């Protein structure tokens, strides 16, 4: 082999450099081959349709969690396997949600996260159950999601029943502490499962804290005018308005009550779809003193504050969909670490036995009973001076509650 120097010959230095490069290139596939295969997570949210904003927020939170896990080195128990998001749009349609489950199953998902709307979640979890694929509900209020005996379904956040019980206890406590100025309530709710279910549960429990449910007023989605509802509430002379509706109707109802000068001791919602930073910052006068019992992050958690900043740096708002979806993915990541496998049965078992503590939430350690986490709880929030403050539970409170609201 010639190694002579010359115009068309190869110098020793160039030969060494070249051979090193070739050897490196040949070795690359071996290194790449040694890298663990990515674990696919199917994210099914309604990113188009009438609840598109909520769906997009859910997707944002889940994708941020996946990025965070990957940047931290992936799933260590799986040799640093990365998480890979498969994005699905349910379009708010049950059949499309199921179709996404089928499609993602063929793409080899290890677990699903979704679906925001309970009807879509009910059908999608059933479809996933056929394959034994774990399905973590990020948002979905209906208790039917976790009461059908499907062993593959998990919900980290508290359900209807727990939220309503906690909200009622807080409202009773606030009213009692103020000398019981409120005696009666009107409930305004959207006519779907979420609004109807919440309103009926609330109405049944109000007498236990000395409040009378004067009337339940249902409205459609979408509703463009609440003038008549406001006038009816004024005529009923209710002390508290309780509302259970989605974003647009929530905001419109609150605005209409203010415009129509309906003076009440409190506007209180449970899982109020519109009680978020967008509403409170864009319409601080309307939102001021409104109370909501909802899924909320722990304001004292530095990790939660860092995540909030990261979301806001992206131009987004730190709404409940974001951190609930974020937690759903983190729960799966933790289960993957403990299972040491992306095998569906092992992952399901690891999820069922989870004791993971979602640091950014006011939750204790996870404990699933029939797929429902018993360690989760909501927080009672109040809009104060253009911001959202946690007023209950006391351990996580960032401000004192104002009840009853000052007369306009």
């Amino acid at each position, binding site marked *: 082999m010639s190694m002579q120097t010359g115009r068309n010959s190869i110098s020793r230095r160039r030969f060494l450099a070249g051979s090193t490069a070739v050897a490196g290139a040949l070795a690359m596939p071996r290194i790449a081959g040694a890298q663990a295969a990515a674990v696919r997570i199917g994210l099914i949210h309604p*990113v*188009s349709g009438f609840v598109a904003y909520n769906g997009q927020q859910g997707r944002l939170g889940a994708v941020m969690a996946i990025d965070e896990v990957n940047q931290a080195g992936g799933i260590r128990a799986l040799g640093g396997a990365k998480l890979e998001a498969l994005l699905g749009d349910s379009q708010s349609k049950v059949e499309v949600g199921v*179709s996404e489950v089928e499609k993602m199953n063929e793409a080899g998902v290890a677990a699903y996260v979704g679906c925001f709307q309970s009807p879509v979640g009910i059908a999608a979890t059933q479809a996933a159950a056929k394959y034994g694929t774990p399905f973590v509900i990020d948002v979905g209020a209906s208790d*039917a999601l976790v009461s*059908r005996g499907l062993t593959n379904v998990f919900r980290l956040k508290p359900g209807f029943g727990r939220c309503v019980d906690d909200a009622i206890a807080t409202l009773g406590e606030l009213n009692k502490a103020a000398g019981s100025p409120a005696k009666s309530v009107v409930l305004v709710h959207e*006519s779907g499962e979420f*609004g109807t279910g919440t309103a009926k549960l609330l109405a049944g429990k109000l007498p236990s804290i000395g409040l009378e449910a004067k009337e339940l007023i249902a409205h459609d989605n979408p509703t463009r005018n609440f003038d008549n509802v406001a006038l009816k509430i004024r005529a009923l002379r209710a002390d508290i308005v309780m509302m259970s509706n989605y974003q647009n109707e929530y905001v419109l109802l609150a605005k209409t009550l203010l415009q129509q000068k309906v003076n009440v001791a409190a506007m209180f919602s449970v899982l109020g779809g519109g009680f978020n930073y967008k509403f409170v910052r864009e319409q601080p006068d309307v939102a001021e003193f409104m109370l909501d019992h909802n899924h909320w992050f722990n304001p004292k958690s530095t990790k939660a504050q860092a995540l909030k900043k990261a979301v806001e740096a992206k131009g987004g708002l730190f709404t409940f969909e974001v951190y609930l979806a974020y937690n759903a993915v983190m729960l799966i990541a933790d289960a993957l670490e403990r299972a040491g496998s992306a095998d569906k049965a092992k992952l399901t078992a690891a999820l069922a036995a989870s004791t993971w503590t979602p640091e950014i939430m006011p939750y204790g350690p996870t404990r699933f009973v029939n797929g429902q986490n018993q360690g989760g709880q909501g927080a009672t929030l109040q809009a104060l001076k253009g911001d959202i403050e946690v007023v209950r539970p006391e351990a996580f409170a960032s401000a004192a509650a104002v009840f009853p609201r000052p007369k306009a």
Partner: protein
Amino acid sequence: MSARAATAALLAAALVYPLLFFGDGAWLVRSNYAIDVGMLALFAAFLGQSWNVAGGFAGLTSFGHVLFFGTGAYCSTILHVGHGVNPWFGWVAATTAGAALGAAVGHLTFRVGLRGSYFALITLAFAETFRVLANSVGFTRGGLGILIPLDQRAAALQFHDPIWFYYLALALCASGLAIAWWLTRSRFGTYLAAIRENEDAARALGIDVVRQKVRCLALSGAMAAAGGTFYAQKYLYIDPSIAFGVDRSVEMLLVAMIGGAGTVFGPLVGAGAVVALGEATRALSDARGLGLILYGLLLVAIVGFLPNGLVGLVRAARRDA
């Protein structure tokens, strides 16, 4: 190829299609997703055919056909969940209820001479009324909806393997095609065509216009109601928005119009196009709704430039050839 041979080929293809994708012995590749898409297309075709029987063959343009769909879904579901009636019998009851409701709506509207846009609006009003009622009355559980217990046995009209829902949808679709074909050959169908083209002339010829229209709406209502039960048993949950939501009425109407209203194969062709388009554009969902925009634009283009639907386009091409 004759129409009969084309139909036989189409039926054979539909029968074979899921075998390409089903189970470990799949002829092509195992894919429940492909079977699911096929099922959705056949189901949409059947619902579109139910609209076509009234809107296409008799000119009874309805904007609220979901009225019958929802009635069927609620009827079998309430009978099953509330009273323990086997869903197979519930399906028969639901179909009968759909026919009865079709006859009742027809009797109420046609007797007083409502037609055209007035009939379209009254059907929309009926559907909305039923949606509000379903939200309000106790036996439908209002907005909470009704969850059908999971019991994946054929005896409970539930199946573990998607192929059986596919074949059930195929059976529905084939029965819809048979009904449409019968309308092109029967005296009843001729009456309907006469009514559609000129109602006054039909009456002058001695046709009992109200009676024939009522019969037609009853037939169409029965079909849509049967579709409602199929949906409920497949997805195991219904609520007022799912059962009586206006978007499903629009879907039924669009499928028939895109394929070709008043033709036997129009709804099938339209459903194939709509479902394929929907699945293709959904692949663009990363663009947040771009898929839906594209889908909408294509629908506008088809409806705007192909007044006789895709079947009309094929016929024109054949004439030119």
